[in-house]
């Protein structure tokens, strides 16, 4: 069955410290993986997708098929990174997204 697991509901780090938000998935096939972010009082917006292999706002995420993980990392956290982060999985264009439960990141000044 398709499943996305984000083990940490809450994560606090100090400004300037590295941050890693964990995401593990199960899917029979080759999924597309995404990270969505929701800043306070704003809509869900795409942060990263694994197929583009890009760095957005200093964040990167590598798909590890062996470990079925797609962890989100940033070497130096900023206060403006405080938000809710959701890992999501999709089978193919037009398919539903399966979301994790989300991790609330707080960056302490």
């Amino acid at each position: 069955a398709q499943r996305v697991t984000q083990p940490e509901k809450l994560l606090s780090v100090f400004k300037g410290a590295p941050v890693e938000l964990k995401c593990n998935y199960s899917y029979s096939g080759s999924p597309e993986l995404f990270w969505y972010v929701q800043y306070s009082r704003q809509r869900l917006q795409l942060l990263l997708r694994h197929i583009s292999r890009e760095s957005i706002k200093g964040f990167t995420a590598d798909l590890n098929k062996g470990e079925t993980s797609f962890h989100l990392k940033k070497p130096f956290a900023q206060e403006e990174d405080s938000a809710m982060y959701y890992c999501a999985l999709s089978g193919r264009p037009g398919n539903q997204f399966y979301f994790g439960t989300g991790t609330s990141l707080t960056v302490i000044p």
Partner: protein
Amino acid sequence: EPEVTQTPSHQVTQMGQEVILRCVPISNHLYFYWYRQILGQKVEFLVSFYNNEISEKSEIFDDQFSVERPDGSNFTLKIRSTKLEDSAMYFCASSEYLAGANNEQFFGPGTRLTVL
């Protein structure tokens, strides 16, 4: 930049009443979706819509729910007889479909539905 819009932002209704949640997807998008998020829980898929018909639905999307694209711009979710457990944030999303292209879904701001 074009965005998905949703109305109303908040809806309060009595149990057993019908509600219609409205969405305007991004104009050149072909796939439309409804998700919901009960407070403190994950975002859950309800239904997807393509080419004027439902393409996928979850077990949550039972006979009480229906979707419609009444004109060229709106996409609606109707709940026929609301229950207390329908209280949630409802998100509309849309995506363009191009073979071989990325699969990003663009989300609206949500409608918070409260059933009393």
